[in-house]
């Protein structure tokens, strides 16, 4: 029996214990990770870890209860089930409460499991991380290494519900990353680089090393700029972070609960016509690609913004029922009952390189890093303000480094102020892709 089936069997067995009048969902998972950190040519730490969990959701008369445990130990399952049942009585009756139901949408076949990675020798993982440290050190004499890391993870999940969902999935992946410190006298600047793959043979260590060194060294001597309105060019990694900030505003549940500035804007222009934004977890290039969502429905491609026009919101089975529409396969689990989120955001790229985009900017800033997106951006009001560092752009050329400044606007305005999208797509270890992005009329605050 394959390991997938063992998890599915466990989920099925839990659901089979549902009493009349109860809707039950079992969500079981297990996974593991290897985390290797190299420092000065030696292994600083080696973490080898397995984890497992079970979550049981019970719905009765419109009331929901939930319980979980960080183990699949049979002796604990009945306790978890009893807790979930007990918790039902405290929830409010909600006419839209319910489980996902099979919707006939087929899973898109994807290669999410890599056998080569599953059997990759530990010694070679260590050697890869050591090689990355060595390559990065060799790039520039001003570079020190903060840490060089190899990480991989695998996970299996299975769902079963009394409403007829039976689904399981299995994924693995790996990445390397390196953090750098560049010194010049008393001054230290930092950089980072990484490379992602389904298997270590897909890594581009030389590129990760080069980027980590460049990011740190090119900030040496950076000064604080004067405040002014300017044009910004976001590096691909920053663009991906910007896309993630927008994610919640596409959630149908946030729209229904009055937490999205996109509410009432369906079919309207919400962005520059250059912007086409898609959520597509079926694209295997995406690090967060998956074939099932957080309720066991097939993951699917959803167009969010097409040529600047807001096309649709994303739904779980709950928000779909409440909005009298269908689930878009966008349920996510972040520890408890399902929420709604983008799974793999992808901005449709243009064709220009970053250099070509910069050549079009007479006066602006290339934003290399941002800091504090979690503290200075309010996705409900749309207020956007983040710390940043980067390089001044003058007459189409990058020049002096700058740091300790903020860039600010609102999310609503920034979408309209996009003036160019690069073709330099980067697939990053996060749930959004990135490419260079040019945005006009942003306030830079410095001295």
């Amino acid at each position: 029996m394959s390991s997938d089936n063992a998890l599915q069997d466990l989920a099925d067995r839990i659901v089979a214990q549902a009493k009349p009048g109860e809707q039950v969902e079992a969500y079981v998972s297990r996974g593991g990770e290897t985390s290797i950190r190299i420092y000065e040519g030696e292994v600083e730490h080696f973490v080898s870890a397995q984890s497992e969990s079970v979550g049981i959701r019970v719905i009765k008369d419109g009331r929901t209860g939930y319980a979980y445990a960080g183990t699949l130990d049979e002796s604990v399952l009945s306790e978890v089930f009893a807790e979930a049942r007990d918790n039902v009585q405290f929830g409010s009756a909600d006419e839209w409460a319910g489980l996902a139901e099979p919707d006939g949408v087929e899973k898109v076949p994807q290669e999410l499991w890599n056998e080569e990675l599953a059997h990759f020798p530990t010694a070679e993982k260590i050697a890869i991380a050591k090689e990355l440290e060595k390559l990065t050190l060799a790039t520039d004499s001003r570079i020190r290494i903060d840490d060089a890391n190899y990480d991989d993870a695998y996970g299996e999940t299975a769902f079963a519900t009394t409403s007829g969902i039976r689904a399981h999935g299995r994924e693995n992946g790996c990445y390397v990353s390196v953090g750098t410190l560049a010194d010049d006298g008393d001054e230290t600047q930092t950089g980072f680089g990484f490379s992602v793959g389904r298997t270590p043979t897909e890594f581009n260590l030389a590129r990760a090393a080069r980027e980590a060194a460049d990011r740190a060294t090119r900030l040496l001597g950076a000064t604080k700029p004067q405040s002014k309105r300017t044009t910004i060019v976001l590096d691909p990694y920053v663009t991906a972070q910007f896309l993630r900030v927008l994610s919640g505003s596409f959630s149908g549940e946030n729209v229904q609960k009055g937490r999205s500035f996109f509410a009432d804007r369906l079919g309207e222009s919400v962005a520059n016509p250059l912007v086409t934004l898609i959520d597509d977890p079926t694209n295997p290039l995406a690090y967060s690609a998956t074939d099932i969502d957080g309720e066991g429905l097939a993951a699917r491609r959803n167009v969010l913004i097409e040529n600047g026009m807001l096309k649709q919101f994303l739904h779980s089975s709950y928000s779909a029922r409440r909005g009298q529409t269908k689930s878009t396969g966008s349920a996510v689990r972040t520890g408890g009952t399902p929420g709604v989120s983008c799974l793999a955001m992808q901005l449709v790229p243009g064709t220009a390189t970053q250099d070509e985009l910069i050549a079009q900017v007479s006066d602006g800033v290339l934003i290399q890093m941002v800091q504090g997106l979690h503290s200075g951006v309010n996705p409900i009001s749309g207020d956007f303000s983040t710390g940043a560092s980067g390089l001044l752009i003058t007459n189409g050329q990058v020049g002096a480094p700058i740091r300790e400044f903020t860039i600010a606007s609102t999310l609503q305005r920034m979408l309209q102020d996009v003036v160019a999208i690069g073709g330099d797509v980067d697939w990053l270890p996060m749930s959004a892709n990135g490419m260079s992005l040019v945005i006009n009329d942003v306030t830079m605050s410095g001295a």
Partner: protein
Amino acid sequence: MGTLSELVGKETIEKVLAKGRSTGAGFSEIFIEDKRSTSAGLDDGRIEQVTTGCDRGAGIRVVHGETTGFAHTADLSEAGLLQAAEAAAVAAKQGSGGVVTVALGGIDTHQVNDVQILPNEVPKTRKVELLERANEAARSIDQAVVQVSAGYGDSVRRILVANSEGVFAADDQVRTLFRVSVVASGDGGMQTGYDSMGRTIGFELFDLYDVEELAAGAARQAVTKLKARPAPSGALPVVIKRGSGGVLFHEACGHGLEADLVGKGASVYRGKVGEMVASSLVTLIDDGTMSGEWGAIGIDDEGHHSQKNTLIENGVLTDYMWDYLRARKENHRQSGNGRRQSYMHLPMVRMTNTFVINGSSEPDDIVKATKNGVYVAKLGGGSVNTASGDFVFGMTEAYLIENGEITEPLREGNLIGNGPQVLRDIDMLGNDFAMGNPGTCGKDGQGVPVGDGQPTLRVKSLTIGGTAA
């Protein structure tokens, strides 16, 4: 449920520690955790659901030279633990070091928190009622309040730590938390308000604090901001209200004083002990023994007693914060700052409750002495690049200061500064010390509960990241 020492016997622990050293490693450690939590959420007028959770397992750490091997397991049987110990030992060093024995004494405890009412002994109905009261209180503030979400959470975390150097210690950590977030809607769009309270105590939290008051405050914050104008862009004097700006010190220097970052040369404060690093007004303390505060612990997650540590005294850097590994390497004392998110994580140097003690200025005088600037009544989160010292923090409730008076509300934004510069630029310090909201500090992918606090203070220049010229 039994205590952890009943669940895993001393003999088993001794065998596990010995197994950890069986490949020749100098140090082995077992960290056992049993965490029970209850949470309940209200949103959109409904109790969404009550969730109960149980996380239990052990993390085993083996240190061989400069290499740490780590494995964790949810299987607390002797066989399960021995298997994890072997995995950790192999991870730290391939090879054999022969047979090792470890003997432990009695369990050590260090009680700093006093819990009156264990949350798991309180009926869930009472927890749910709090949410409903908060919802009503927030909605009754103003018609403009369009959405309220409230959350209740409690946890009982029991830990047991033993290592091959004879540490054998246990602690029970009980935390109770309540939070409210509010959305208000007006002509200019939506605004949000947020407040929270949390302490390392039990359900008596709600005898000490009123959820209705908390909710009303969050609602007022959202409604006030509907009339807010864009925050200024550029450098201005900033006055930070008491109990809201501890995160400034957490970011401006707290992280930079963590010995692991200092040791790697990734801190602007490296090599600065004994030097003036801040305005002479500043005395900064990190105190894990501060009873009931959000970052209070009896022992750290390496079994070391929590302590009160002075980091900066009258502007002079006195010491960093330490964990086992870094203290061993530098031949320094541990300071009770070795913490981890759970048994699935390696410990590292972390803050506990970090605060600046009182100065002598009257808070009103600080505002009056400021001709034009920004008054920050509530700060959000922040982050820091410890190597360059550049840090940001968000202001979630702020006002303009014009001619020495607090005037119009401002929209949200980040403030940015450089740690060493900002510490020197603190030119007024109030006499009204207060601790702030419960926080979760993130480092290297791990979150731990931390507290912070400070009296009202002024920084003579900080960059405000708004959009108004």
